[in-house]
C-alpha cells in the first residue's frame, strides 16, 4: 500500500549553535488540545492525573489557556462529554533552545521575565514571540517553543538573529 510521506516544518534544517546556545527543530509527537467544558475541570483533572495550573507544565501537559491544556506525546484519553479534544499535532512546529544565552535570546522576542529564577523549569506561557504567538515551556536546561507551523521559518530566523547579536556582543565584549 502506498504511504504518504510526512515532513516536519523545518525538515532537514541542521541545528545552529551561536554564543554556546543551540537552536534545533525537535519532535514532540502527538499534540492534543484538551479544553474543559464548563464545570468539568475537576473530573478532567482526575482523569488526567492533574490538570496543569495556569502558566505551568507538568508531565505531558502544558497549560495553554483557561481550563485548556495541550497533551504532548501520548494519545488522549477518552474525555467525551467532559472536554473538547482536538488534534493539533500537525499545526505546530517545535523548536528547542538550549544553552547559557537561551533566556537572553528569547527576552529579545518575548516580553516575559525568563531568567531561571523567575521562569524555572516547569513554567509555561502563551506569549508573543516577535509578531507571532507561541507556547513557551521552560525545561531543565532549555526552552521548548511551539509555534504555528507555517511561521516556523520566521521564528527560526528571529531566534537565530537574536543569537547572532548575542554572539557578536560576546565577541566585542559589550
Amino acid at each position, binding site marked *: *500500500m*502506498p*504511504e*504518504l*510521506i*510526512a*515532513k*516536519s516544518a523545518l525538515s532537514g534544517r541542521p541545528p545552529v549553535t551561536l554564543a554556546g546556545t543551540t537552536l534545533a527543530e525537535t519532535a514532540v509527537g502527538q499534540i492534543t*488540545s484538551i*479544553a*474543559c*467544558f*464548563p464545570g468539568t475541570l475537576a473530573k478532567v483533572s482526575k482523569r488526567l492525573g492533574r490538570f496543569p495550573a495556569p502558566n505551568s507544565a507538568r508531565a505531558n501537559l502544558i497549560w495553554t489557556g483557561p481550563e*485548556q491544556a495541550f497533551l504532548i506525546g501520548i494519545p488522549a484519553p477518552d474525555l467525551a462529554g467532559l*472536554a*473538547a*479534544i*482536538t*488534534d*493539533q*499535532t*500537525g*499545526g*505546530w512546529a517545535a523548536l528547542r533552545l538550549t544553552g547559557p544565552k537561551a533566556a*537572553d535570546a528569547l*527576552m*529579545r522576542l*518575548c*516580553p*516575559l*521575565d525568563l*531568567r531561571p529564577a*523567575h521562569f524555572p523549569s516547569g513554567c509555561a506561557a502563551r506569549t508573543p514571540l*516577535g*509578531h*507571532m504567538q507561541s507556547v513557551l515551556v521552560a525545561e531543565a536546561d532549555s526552552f521548548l517553543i511551539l509555534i*504555528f*507551523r*507555517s*511561521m516556523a*521559518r*520566521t*521564528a527560526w*530566523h*528571529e531566534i537565530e*538573529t*537574536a543569537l*547572532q*547579536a548575542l*554572539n*557578536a*556582543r560576546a*565577541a*566585542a565584549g*559589550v
Partner: protein
Amino acid sequence: MRIAGKGLIDRTEPLKFTFDGTRYSGFKGDTLASALMANDVRLVGRSFKYHRPRGILTAGPEEPNAMVEVLDGGSQSPNTRATVQEIYGGMAARSQNRWPSLRYDVMAVNDLAAPFLGAGFYYKTFMWPRAFWEGLYEPLIRRAAGLGKLKPQHETATYEKAYAFCDILVIGSGPAGLMAALTAARSGADVILAEQDSVIGGRLIAEDGQINGAPSAPWIATTLAELETLNVRVMTRTTVVGAYDQGTYGALERVGLHLPQAAHLPRECFWRIVAGQAIMATGALERPIAFTNNDRPGIMLASGAQTYLNRFGVPPGQKVTLYATNDNARLVARQLIAAGVKVAAILDSRAEASSVEDCPVYLNAAITDTAGRRSLTGISGHHAGGDFQIDTDCLLMSGGWNPLVNLACHQNAKPSWRDDIAAFVPHSGMVPGLHAAGAANGAFSTHAALTEGRAMALAALQALGKTATSPDMPQAEDAPYRLQPLWDVPGKGRAWLDFANDVTVKDVKLAAQEGFTSVEHMKRYTTQGMAPDQGKNSNVGALAVLADATGRGIAETGTTTFRPPFTPVSIGALGAGGQGAGFAPQRYMTSDPASRDRGAPMIEAGLWYRPSYFPKPGETTWRQSCDREVLMVRSSVGVADVSTLGKIDIQGKDAARFLDFVYTNTFSTLPVGRVRYGLMLREDGHVMDDGTTARLGDTHYLMTTTTAAAGQVMRHLDFVHQAYCPDWQVRFISVTESWAQFAVAGPLSRMLLNSLLDTRLEEFPFMTTAEVSVEGVKARLFRISFSGEEGYEIAVPTPYGEALFRDLLAKAETLGGGAYGMEALNVMRIEKGFITHAEIHGRITAFDIGMAKMVAAKKDCIGKASAQRPGLNGAEREQLVGLRPVDPNAAIGAGAHLFTPGDKVERVNDQGYVTSVCWSPTLGSHLGLAFLKDGRARHGQQIRLVDHMRKTDLLCEVTDPVFLDPEGAKLRA
C-alpha cells in the same frame, strides 16, 4: 594638548579618526569632543538658523552645538553628539549644516540678516500667497536651516530590542546611584544599574572628587566590584529615556556605536525595563548664562571644562576665564590652576563672595560682549571696580544647576520650584515607584547624594516589602551650594538662551510682547526647547526671562511639558528587527516548495504566500497561464492549495446553538456529514465573512473562513462567547495549521481522487463530508466548489501536505490536468458570481449581495436587528450585479464607476462601482462584478462604465452576477 598624567583615557591605545576629512589622533576612552579639543579643534559646527560658528559647550548628552554626522560603513548617523560619541580606530565624522565648508559657510549671511530673522519671522513673512508655503517657502527654509542629513537609502545596520526585569532600577551611577544600588543589592534586591556614560561614577569622575578622604576612583572600583558579585546587572552606555506606566522604563543602549561595524553587532538596543521600584539618580545639568555673544567657540560650561580636565586630561584653553553665579564653580578654577592651566580671572556675578583663589577675582561682574569669530579672543564688561577687557581663549560659564527632573515628569506631573537653589525639583509621587535622589533631587553635595541614594533605596526596599541591610555611609564633601541666580546680563546684541535652535533673550521678550505669554506658546513661537537637546540647556533660562518679561514669578510661569524620550532615540532601534521581511511573519504552505519548483510567482495573501499561476514552457504572460489553467479545470481537473483558509474546530452540546447565533442561517438543522454555506454579520448588520461549515458529529462542527479574515472571525467568536454566552457548553480552537487542504476541481476530479484514495468514492453528493483514507493516512473529504465545477477539498494532517500535493499533481498531469493558482481561482469564482472580500468589503449588507433570504426569520443572530435599520435595504442600495462589456474584448478595471447612459459623469450621478474583473476564457468575454443602485431591477439594461485612471469609458450590459451555469448543474454533477 593633554596634561601629563591626568585623565582616565588609555594612553597606551592611540586611535586614529577623521573629522571633516582631516586625520587626528586620540586615545581609547576619548569622546569625539575630548579628542577634538585635545587636537585644538574649537570650531565644530554651525548653528541651526544663523549659521554661527559654534564650539563644544558641554561634556555630556545635553550638548546643543557639537553635533556631527558619523559615517560608519553603510550608515550615516546625523546629529550625533560629539560629547557622547566615543572614538574608535578608523572612525570618520563630519560637521553638518554648512556649505561649502565648516570654516567658510555661505549661509552665514543669515547672521548678518539677523535683525530681520527674529522669532516669528517666517510666520509673518511667508503668509502669502498661501499655496507657496508647501511648494516653495518651506523647502527653501528647510534647506537653509537645518541639522544633519540622513542617507537616502535603506538602513542596513543591525539594531536590537530587548526586555529586562528587576526589583529596583537605579538610573545613574554617580554617588547617589552607586549608593542606592549598593544598598538595594546588599539587601538582596535584584538590581539594574543603568548609566548613560561608558564609565561608572557620574560627576565623581568629572569632579575628581574624594570619598573617605581619598580619590574617589578606588571607592568606585570597589563598589562596582561588589555590585557585580551581588545580584546587579550593570548596564553602561544605557540611557533611560522614558518612564511609562506600571514601572516600565524605556532605555537606549549604545551597543556598538563606539566600535567599528562588525557583522551582527547591533548599533543600539532599545530596552524595555520593568522595575518594581526605581531610583532616579540622574544628576543635574549646569546652566549657561545669557549675555551678548555668549555662543562663540571657546565659551563653555564650567562643568564641561572640569570633565575635559579631569577625565580626559585636556585643558579647555590656554588662558581661561570663569564667569559664575555660585561657589560651586570655584572648584573648577582651583583645579585648573592646580593642573597648571592659566586662569586669567574669576568673574563672580555676586556682590559678596570669597576671593581666595590664586588668580584675580572680580565681584559684581557682568560680561557685556565677547570677541572672536571662529574662536574666542576676548571678553569685555564691568565689575565692582570698573570696566574690564580680558584677553582669553576660553570662557567658562556657571549659572547654577538644574536637577534632571525629566523622567519624573514623563507622566505629566509638574516639578516644584525651589527658591533657595533657584531650580525645579521633583516631588514624590510624580511617577509611582520612582524616587529621586542626589543632584536630581536638588541635593548637590557628594555627602548629600550618598545620603539620599541610601535613603531612597531603603524607601524602595520598603515598598517592595524587603528587609534592608544598610551599608555604612562613606565620608565625602558637604560644601554648601551658594548661588545668586543670574539669567541674562543686560547688554546690546544677541544673548543666546537656546544654542541648538538659535533662540535669544530678545526672541523670548518679543514673544511676550506679542502676546505669547504662556510658556507653551512662547516655546512654539520661538522654537525654544524644540531642538534635539529638547531645551536641556535653555528651558529654565528661557522661562526665567519670560517670567521677567511678563512680571510673573518663575514658579507661576511654570515649565513646558517634559516628554519622552530624554535623549534622541533612533527609529532603527525602536523598529529593530522590522526591516524588510522582518516587518511581519511569513507564512508558508506545505506546497510552497512544490509551487516554487514549478516556477510559480508567489503573491501575498495576508501573511501567506500563495502561487499566482504556474507557467508552462512558452507562456510569456500571466494571462496565458491563467487562461490555460481555467480551461484545464473546466475540461479536466485542477489542484489548488487552499490550506490558508481559516479552519475553526467547534465542539460542545451548545455548538449548534452557538453557530445559529453567529451565522445568519441555521446550522442546528444541518445533518451530520453535511456542509452548509454560512454568512456572518458584524454587530452593525454588515457582512463580516462567509464560508462553509461542516457538521462532523452531533456536537462537532468545522467552520471555514476567508484566508485574510481568519483572525478576525476567531476574535469575533471569542468575543461573542465570552460576552454573550460564557456559560454555553462550546469550545473552539483554530485548526488552520493542523490540516493541509487541497481543492480538486473539474470533471475528472473524482477520477483523480479515486486514483489516490484507499477506498473508491461511492455516492458523494454536493455539500457532503466524510472521513476517508488517502495513501494510508486518515483524511477529511468535503464536496464543495468555488469554481463551479464538480469539486472536492481533501484535507490531511499538515505533515503530509507536501506529499499529497505532489502526488495529486503527478496524477492530475497524467489526466491532462495540473495545478492552478490564485489568478485562475479568481477568474472561475467571478464566472460563477461567488463573492470574496473584494465584494464583502465592510460596507455591504446581506441584502446588497442578494442574500437577504439567508438571514433566517425564525431565529435571532448577531447583526440581524441592525441589518433591518432604514437605509440598509431597498432600491437605494447598491446591489451586486454582473457586468459584460458590450464589446466583449474591451477590458474593464476594478474601481471603475458606473453612470446611467446620458447622465453627466459627475459624483452626484454615480450609480455604483466595479469590485472584481477578469477575462473569462470560458465565455470569451471580459466580466465584472459590481455594485449598482437598484441593480437587481436593472438586469438587461446598459450602464456606462468610466475609469478615469485607466482611461476607460464604455457601455456594459447589466446581468445576473452568475455568468456560468446558473442552475449549478456542473457542481452537482
